[in-house]
């Protein structure tokens, strides 16, 4: 492991060194520590309400995670996925005389630091919420970090690295993993017929002996139950089987022949992964890992010149795209609009009048804030050299490059507003103001990105920039809120809507000018 160990140590040490040089790291550390403290505290109330505030509660939650994580990992490894290889690994590591199994271990251990953080968080929750004794948490930490990793590493090696398992056999493993999930589901259905559906019956299912008898997943659950609840015949047997399985698989992984036939699949993954990363950096969220983006045939009639070309190029791209101008935001707006209307009808109206009056703008603001990171085409335009080379004014470029996005926002605004407006009997005027609110706030997000880029882009990195963008938007929402309060006090709900939109549109106009100035600065410096 000499060279691999060196590579792992140096990458980790240099990353830490680089991170410590950036001021934003200290901010993240503080946020992380606050989360480590605040999340367990807030979950404590929930855990008490559902009687999960004891060690058996921790066992139940970890059991639930095991249902999801173990089959998902088995399927990923059988598909030769689930390990992150980069192009640099392909360049330097794959052709080197490093054993292909060692390379697999290296890829597996890349997530060790992140795993340790998650485990630390789980241990904190276990101690503060479920009152698990410290020694048990220490054993759990060691078990998860060492034993579980050894077993998972062996399974990974046997599935990912095996040269005897062809595509067909790997398919059988995938079916086996689904079968395990099927068995667990069957036990769940059986429990439902026995005890009915209630929160306690679900917890009972998670603790049931039958679940602990299911191979692999159940044996892991046995270990958890033995540790947090105490010994039973079933969980002791399951634990023994778990350790025997670990020993057997480790030996099988050591004996297995592996000459690097998996490299070809790893290369495909690495190329795909780098492409997705690069495209995310440019604000394209459509690209998915393992799925090639498909484009249809389309054409546009090009009109106008200069920056207008940006508009038509985007239109052409949208027409070639599978979902035209509709994306994640459209789906979210549609679901939220219909969901809100359904809830209103189901509940027979909302109790508080003020809530009914402002629920749509409130929901719009919340969703736009949540999806701050989804930046659309303007972020992409900023990365393209052609945007700067087009002989036109920065303001016209900004307008033309974002025009289509405003159309998109109009559609999303209508989708989120119309269903609720219809069932609530909203006046057309208020509904229109709701749509304008959505459009203005979405446009604000677009321009806030440019302002964030100008202010902190060079110092805080991508995440820091997004957080600053979030801060700007929160500030603008606060302004709109103040407008609504002022309007409501002065002349009622209609004026509140009007003032809210006026404040928001004014703030957005200021941001737009700032974005255009920043773009001008980027062009000229």
């Amino acid at each position: 492991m000499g060279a691999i160990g060196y590579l792992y140590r140096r990458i980790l040490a240099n990353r830490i060194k680089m991170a410590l040089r950036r001021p934003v790291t200290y901010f993240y550390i503080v946020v992380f520590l606050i989360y480590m403290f605040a999340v367990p505290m807030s979950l404590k109330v929930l855990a008490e309400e559902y009687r999960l505030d004891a060690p058996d509660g921790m066992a139940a939650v970890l059991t639930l995670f095991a249902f999801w994580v173990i089959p998902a990992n088995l399927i990923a490894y059988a598909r030769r996925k689930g390990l992150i290889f980069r192009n640099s690994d392909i360049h330097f590591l794959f052709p080197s005389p490093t054993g292909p199994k060692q390379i697999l271990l290296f890829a597996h251990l890349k997530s060790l630091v992140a795993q340790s953080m998650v485990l630390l968080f789980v241990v904190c929750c276990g101690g503060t919420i479920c009152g698990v004794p410290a020694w048990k948490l220490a054993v759990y930490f060691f078990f998860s970090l060492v034993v579980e990793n050894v077993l998972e590493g062996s399974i990974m090696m046997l599935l990912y690295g095996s040269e005897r398992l062809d595509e067909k056999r790997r398919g059988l493993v995938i079916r086996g993993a689904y079968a395990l999930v099927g068995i667990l589901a069957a036990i769940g259905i059986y429990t439902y017929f026995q005890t009915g559906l209630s929160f306690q019956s679900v917890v009972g299912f998670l603790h049931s002996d039958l679940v602990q008898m299911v191979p692999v997943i159940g044996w892991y659950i046995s270990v958890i139950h033995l540790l947090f609840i105490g010994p039973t015949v079933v969980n002791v047997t399951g634990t023994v089987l778990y350790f025997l399985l670990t020993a057997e698989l480790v030996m099988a992984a050591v004996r297995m022949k592996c000459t690097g036939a998996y490299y070809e699949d790893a290369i495909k993954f690495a190329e795909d992964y780098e492409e997705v990363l690069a495209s995310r950096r440019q604000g394209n969220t459509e690209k998915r890992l393992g799925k090639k983006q498909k484009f249809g045939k389309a054409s546009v009639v090009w009109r106008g010149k200069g920056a207008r070309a940006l508009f038509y190029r985007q239109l052409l791209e949208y027409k070639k795209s599978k979902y035209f101008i509709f994306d994640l935001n459209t789906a979210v707006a549609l679901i939220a609009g219909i969901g809100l209307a359904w809830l209103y009808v189901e509940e027979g109206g909302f109790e508080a009048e003020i809530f009914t009056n402002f629920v749509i703008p409130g929901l719009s603001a919340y969703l736009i804030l949540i999806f701050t990171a989804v930046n659309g085409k303007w972020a992409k335009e900023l990365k393209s050299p052609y945007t700067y080379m087009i002989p036109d004014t920065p303001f016209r470029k900004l307008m033309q490059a974002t025009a289509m996005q405003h159309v998109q926002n109009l559609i999303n605004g209508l989708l989120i507003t119309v269903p609720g407006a219809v069932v609530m009997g909203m006046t057309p005027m208020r509904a229109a103001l709701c749509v304008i609110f959505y459009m203005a706030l979405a446009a604000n997000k677009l321009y806030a990105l440019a302002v964030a880029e100008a202010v902190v882009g060079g110092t805080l990195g991508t995440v820091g920039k997004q957080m600053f963008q979030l801060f700007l938007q929160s500030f603008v929402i606060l302004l709109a809120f103040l407008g609504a309060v002022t309007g409501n006090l002065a002349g009622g709900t209609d004026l509140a809507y009007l003032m809210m939109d006026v404040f928001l549109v004014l703030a957005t106009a200021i941001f737009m000018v700032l974005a255009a100035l920043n773009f001008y600065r980027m062009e000229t410096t």
Partner: protein
Amino acid sequence: MLEVMELTKRYGKTLAADGVGFTVPDGRIGILLGPNGAGKSTVIKSIAGLLRYKGSIRIQGHDSRSLEAKRCFAYVPEMPYMYDALTVREHMEFIVRAYGVEVTEDEIRELLEQFELEDKQDKLGNELSKGMMQKVSICCALIIRPSVILLDEPMVGLDPAAIKELKEVILKLKARGTTVLISTHMLEMVKELWDVTFVMDKGRILGTYTREALGEEDLEELFFSVTGQSGKNREAEMPVARQKGV
């Protein structure tokens, strides 16, 4: 010596390499030529052990997938990719450890100086230009003192001084008895280097030509005559250049 025998590789229904076979003896420089899509990359990646294939590839008599073969084999890919968080020096240190070679401080310094990297050794991978990355990639390949070296479009991205340096290095490697295989489109760049040329198209080797047998014939003319790209076609490809008398 590098021996490629009956190398066949399919991507789904596409036959990218169809029974490719050639040999580059010790101390000789082989050139792999072919138009885009000829299958050169497939052959190169197969030799580097990055693809599954049918047939046999032997490096100094060892199966190319074996660790023995990899120990004496160096590969310079067309696109260099660095570890973002490793410095130039750390890349070299990693390679030295991975290949288990004994290298002195002076040898490393000499190599870095040769490619004008001595002031860049503490730069991280993500701080380097493409040309710099290519130089690091070449240094990492040379530091292991390979018996067989495979260079895929090695001149792309290099400045004229580095190209000159690389040519000299390749000739020195040849003199030392190293087997060299270069895949390139830049025929001008390898004119004075080559000993044997393999012309590929549509996944097959169309012809193998030694410098001795070819005599005075130009490599470029040979390439166009073997691949069937006539002078007329070439004219059609360069109308603008012709019109302007370039």
